[in-house]
């Protein structure tokens, strides 16, 4: 393997150096932290690669498995840095300063306990966050509209679940772990029931697949949804309805043996969102949204079946809503209330109020509202 590593590592080091040289100069201040992270991580990868050929221990036959594993990890890191970080920095010049100011304003309004991520309009697949890079990607034109901006609050919750050694976010993470334990107990109980009843093997495989989804993805998504509900209020529920109407599939979809789902079913998410709204004093709004949601479901010609209800039991969803609320409260974040009247909160909730008040004229109204929000966010808070 030595010859292979000599050639491949040298070529990868060239690639890493090229990537460092591709980081644009003169980036604006909000990108400095990302640039720093990117440089540091690329340097670490290059150091690791150098060790693969220069560290005498790496040449020993008994260490070749470790060497190959380290080589693969270095390649993956470089791939991610290239496709996410370098790409984001390259697009930094087109960045929408408004979106960065907006996220900073949200951070202040809701007493977000961490630094805000840098926002760049690079996304080709809706909103996404890379907590390790403190980077949020949004679609190119999103800063010119209001109806999907509530999703910024959802994205802000992801880093809260990945931060380590930070006591401020511990209550949220503790609540998350409680929920994971509750979900595990529930599904393991169902698995036990199947075993005792001698039911079809397929159902056991379904339950195992659901547990995997709950553990790795779904609980996170529910927590991020509810963080958005608790810190923003009804606008997030409307935004979810909008997303489901425009981009969603069957809202009652559950994964089968050969399919996986990174996000819970849209209907289950809406159930959690509505429960969350009720818990913080938006019962009337939750009723209105529920009516519109049922209209949408009826129009889609879909309905919940027994497997859906088993996969997303209401009592589990209610537990998530309660525990995540305690977590958000104990982080000392501001919980939205009907009388909350800060700039971004007012703008995003107001947009949905206006949308339903006068759907035909909303698009025209929105232009002025976006401009007004830009002006407000440019001022010192």
């Amino acid at each position, binding site marked *: 393997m030595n010859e292979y590593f000599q050639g491949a590592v040298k070529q990868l080091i060239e690639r890493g150096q090229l990537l460092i040289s591709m980081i644009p100069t003169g980036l604006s201040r909000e990108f400095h932290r990302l640039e720093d992270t990117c440089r540091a991580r690329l340097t670490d990868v290059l150091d690791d690669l150098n060790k693969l050929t220069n560290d005498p221990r790496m040449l020993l036959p008994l260490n070749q*498995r470790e060497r190959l*594993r380290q080589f693969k990890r270095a390649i993956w890191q470089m791939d991610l840095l290239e496709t996410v970080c370098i790409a984001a920095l390259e697009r930094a010049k087109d960045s929408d300063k408004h979106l960065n100011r907006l996220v900073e304003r949200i951070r202040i309004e809701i007493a977000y306990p961490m630094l805000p991520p840098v926002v760049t309009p690079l996304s080709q697949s809706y909103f996404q966050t*890379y907590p*390790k890079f403190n980077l949020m990607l949004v679609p190119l034109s999103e800063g010119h509209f209001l109806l999907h901006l509530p999703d910024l609050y959802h*994205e802000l919750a*992801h880093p809260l679940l990945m931060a380590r050694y930070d006591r401020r976010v511990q209550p949220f993470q503790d609540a998350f772990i409680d929920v994971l334990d509750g979900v595990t107990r529930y599904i393991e109980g169902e698995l036990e029931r199947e075993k005792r009843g001698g039911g079809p093997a397929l159902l056991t495989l379904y339950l195992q697949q659901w547990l995997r989804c709950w553990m790795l*993805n779904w609980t996170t998504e529910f927590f991020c949804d509810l963080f958005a509900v608790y810190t923003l209020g009804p606008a997030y529920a409307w935004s979810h309805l909008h997303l489901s109407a425009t981009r969603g599939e069957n809202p009652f979809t559950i994964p089968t043996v050969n399919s996986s789902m*990174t996000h819970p079913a849209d209907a289950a998410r809406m159930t959690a969102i509505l429960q969350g709204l009720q818990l913080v004093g938006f019962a009337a709004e939750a009723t209105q949204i529920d009516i519109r949601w049922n209209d949408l479901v009826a129009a889609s010609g879909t309905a919940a079946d027994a497997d859906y209800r088993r996969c997303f039991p209401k009592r589990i969803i209610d537990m998530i809503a309660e525990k995540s609320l305690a977590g958000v409260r104990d982080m000392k974040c501001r919980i939205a209330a009907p009388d909350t009247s800060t700039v971004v909160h007012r703008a995003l909730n107001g947009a949905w109020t206006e949308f339903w008040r006068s759907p035909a004229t909303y698009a025209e109204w929105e232009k002025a509202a976006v401009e007004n929000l830009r002006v407000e966010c440019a001022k010192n808070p």
Partner: protein
Amino acid sequence: MSQIAMYSGVYDEIREYAELLDKVLMDLKGGTSGPQDENRQRLAELLTSLATPGAGDLSIRVISFLLRDDAGVDPAELAKIGKLLKATSADNSMIEPLERLAQSLQQEQAVTMARMRMRG
């Protein structure tokens, strides 16, 4: 959150521990490892947590879950190795099960990478 962003998070959870494990394995094989080594202490903590249901932070729980149906990973054996790592000098009997754990983590990383590439 997009699928690629989500899988990158899972990968990151695994990577840190996979790196730690490989470092300790090389030290054990090279006979340069002592019970007070920081990496060895951290690995001992990880192994103990993996073997204790409901223990550890979020990343430990993710890894524990991913490995729970892996036939090559025996939690009781890992707990025993965790104790040995804290208490004694290197013992070759630790290497084989740790190597199996490293292979399992590598496999989980490969699966996660494949998912990212499929959807990326």
